[in-house]
């Protein structure tokens, strides 16, 4: 009897924990949506900022985020895929490969502001790229590299052994097997990783703080060497700089909503693709 009561109380606490979690996270989505919708309009999405950031739109920030994100994928996808292919197909079982695995895991845990410092010292200063889309993209690409590697790794490992053996039996070499059989089969899983990486790169602020972002410009970036506005940094700048806090707050709500929608849609898409893929194999 006592055990029954303990069980009831215990389960109640678990339900309460989940309810509070959902309440907290739900209220964030609610407040940002309700306030953000007020400023969202076609003009907000497509116009440049006007009147010292109190009117107009945030198009340069959207474009900047787009460039930074695509730029970072451009670098991290090939590198991440190659690393994953190496780990699955080529790597011997030895201590050096173990160290490599550990360093990938640890790279994933490095604080984002530390990537910002690294980008500042290496890309901005040492290579002389200056504060630019190129420097920001490179910094972000190292940040998302572990995500791309682990998603690609999972996808490649899931390719059945029999497919590889069939290919070898037909006389194909290892490289031909990888290129024609393994990678195409794993492609949906790799794509999931890429999409999740895009979501992560789009939302990060600290790494681009010193490497790419600028607060106020009414021009679009013209080359990889120009600095740019970015949605996440724009939210921060609106809240901490400028002279019209109230109007700026509403614009920040709009930016937060766009960013939130962007990131949530991207990760929902990735998860949908993954679930679909999983069902195919199981």
């Amino acid at each position, binding site marked *: 009897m006592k055990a029954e009561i303990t069980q009831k109380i215990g389960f109640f606490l678990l339900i309460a924990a989940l309810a509070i979690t959902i309440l907290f996270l739900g209220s964030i989505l609610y407040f940002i949506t309700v306030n953000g919708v007020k400023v969202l309009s076609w003009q907000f999405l497509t116009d440049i900022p006007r009147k010292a950031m109190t009117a107009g739109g945030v198009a340069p920030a959207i474009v900047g985020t787009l460039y930074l994100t695509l730029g970072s994928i451009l670098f991290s996808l090939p590198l991440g895929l190659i690393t994953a292919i190496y780990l699955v197909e080529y790597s011997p079982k030895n201590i050096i490969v173990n160290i490599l695995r550990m360093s990938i895991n640890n790279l994933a845990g490095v604080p984002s502001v530390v990537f910002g410092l690294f980008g500042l010292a290496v890309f901005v200063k040492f290579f002389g790229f200056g504060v630019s889309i190129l420097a920001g993209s490179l910094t972000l690409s190292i940040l998302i590299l572990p995500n791309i590697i682990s998603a690609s790794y999972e996808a490649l490992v899931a390719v059945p052994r029999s497919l590889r053996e069939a290919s070898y039996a037909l006389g194909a070499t290892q490289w031909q097997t990888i290129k024609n059989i393994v990678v195409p089969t794993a492609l949906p899983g790799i794509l999931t990783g890429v999409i999740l990486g895009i979501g992560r790169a789009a*939302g990060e602020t600290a790494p681009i703080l010193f490497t790419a972002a600028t607060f106020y410009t009414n021009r679009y970036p013209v080359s990889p060497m120009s600095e740019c506005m970015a949605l996440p940094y724009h939210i921060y700048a609106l809240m901490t700089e400028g002279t019209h806090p109230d109007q700026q707050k509403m614009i920040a709500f709009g930016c937060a909503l766009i960013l939130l929608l962007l990131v949530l849609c991207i990760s929902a898409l990735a998860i949908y693709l993954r679930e679909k893929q999983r069902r195919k194999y199981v």
Partner: protein
Amino acid sequence: MIRTRENIYKWIFTVLAFSSLIFLLGIIVVLFVESIPVFRSTGLFKFLFSRNWYPTNEANPEFGILSMLVGSFVVTIGAMLVAIPLGIGSALYIHELAGDKQKMYLKNIVEVLGAVPSIVFGFFGMVIISPFIQQLLKIPTGQCAFTGAVVLGIMAIPTVCSIAEDALSVVPKAFREASFALGANRWQTLWGVVIPAAGSGISTALMLGISRVVGETMTVLMVTGGAAAIPNSIFSPVRPMTSTIAAEMGEAVVGGQHYHALFAIGFVLFVITLVLNLVAEIISRRYRLKLGLDL
């Protein structure tokens, strides 16, 4: 001919695969080299344990990060007090009480929420939570360690929850069945068998949660106020390490002592998170070995 080509591909892949290792080593080297001038002029001990942070004092700048270490520590502990019960409680619910379909939805929702950018949490904390806490508790400013801990704690829930859920889900079914066979009810089984069996996996979740909170930048920058002093209560403003770097790098002269001091903070931060991540990894390896799973 084919042989050579195969070998060339293998070589290219091997070399490029090690770029991650190079990046990690590169980060260590860069942080260390850029920190040396400050460690040399201030001394490592004084840098870590002096509470005087006057980086822009021209005659006699001082670089002591004790108050930031304390700030990071206070905020992190507070955040974990929020994230641990809620994150692990939710994971237990998903594992034990949710049906198959509900489980799938909840896991995906948690994962999607984990992708919400930290700037969104920071912004929400600044415009909604911080004024709310200020009014509720009648304190001079809502931007304080307490608010920071609450917002960071909420942010860390998805991380803690999904890793803990993974740990619970790999506990072999046989453990549960054995417990039921001995007459234990579901709660006794969960509490006495499943949680202990998943214990080290759950502690991995905690380590990674702490690591995420310690390294979080934008949220603390926006909600903890930013006074570089040792807080005398949890309702005082604090300035953790990450937000100092983010807030001051813009004004620091490149190559100056201040610039190097900020890299030195980054170095300290990096070492802390590296240790946390290594501990998490070691625990999780042991755990998987114990349950007889692949690494």
